[in-house]
């Protein structure tokens, strides 16, 4: 295979997580086990939560940008999203999922997120 890198930074380490992710994805497809049913359900539920989180976050950023919120309201919003972020990270890890798993390929409709 030819070198596929067209333009690169000095440091490539931050990008090296993909190989492990590819290998995980492959082994997950082959080794179907009872746990994978539970994980599949968790993946679906977390995907929907992640979709809502992103929509709400975008909305919140627009409102902050618009200047219609008080300092206290911004702080409360931030705390809420931070807590949600933390919980999502815990849950995805618990089910052996990655950020990329929290997306649905809807075929001709494209990807959900």
């Amino acid at each position, binding site marked *: *295979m030819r070198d596929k890198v067209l333009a690169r930074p000095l*440091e490539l380490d931050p*990008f090296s997580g993909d190989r492990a992710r590819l290998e995980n994805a492959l082994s997950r497809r082959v080794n179907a086990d009872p746990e994978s049913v539970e994980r599949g359900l968790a993946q679906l539920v977390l995907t929907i939560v992640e979709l809502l989180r992103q929509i709400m976050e975008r909305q919140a950023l627009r409102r902050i940008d618009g200047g219609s919120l008080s300092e206290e309201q911004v702080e409360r*919003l931030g705390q809420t*999203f931070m807590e949600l972020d933390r919980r999502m990270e815990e849950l995805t890890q618990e089910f052996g999922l990655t950020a990329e798993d929290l997306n649905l390929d809807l075929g*001709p409709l494209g990807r959900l997120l």
Partner: protein
Amino acid sequence: MLYARTQRREVTLDAVWRHEELIEALMESRDLLPVRFGTLVSEERAAARAVAERAPQLAASLERVRGAVELAVRAHPREPDRRGYRPGESGREYMSAKARRVEAARLVHEPLALVARDSVVQQGPELLRAAYLVDRGAVESFVSMVQRVQRAHAELDVLCTGPWPPYSFAEGGVSS
């Protein structure tokens, strides 16, 4: 239409790369719509039927990617990744960090999208993960633009790879 008889159903990294190498070799001399690795149909006629049923969509998709290749761009912030929360961070700081990420991703994506025929921003752990459909003759100027963006944003690491088969733009593909 190109397909192969299944010999083994094993999905290994090697098999995925062989599939990719074959598609890329074909891609050098023609335009094509790649099908996802491991797409199975029961027999030869089923493969022909699957293509015939979607002929109009496939023809439209092929027109969309004709004369172009896919280039992938990913960008990471050079500072420790600020995707998540930081202990002790205030709510306001957290939201400002989010806003900065959205803005940084936009500043990388927009100039690149202008040089590309089409583009799609994808979900991923990076600040920006996107695919660009670029005319074969414009790959060099696209890469120059990536380098310009990189120079303008020393706080980011920008990686550009390709040319890839236009997976991200091959909608209406055959699925089994």
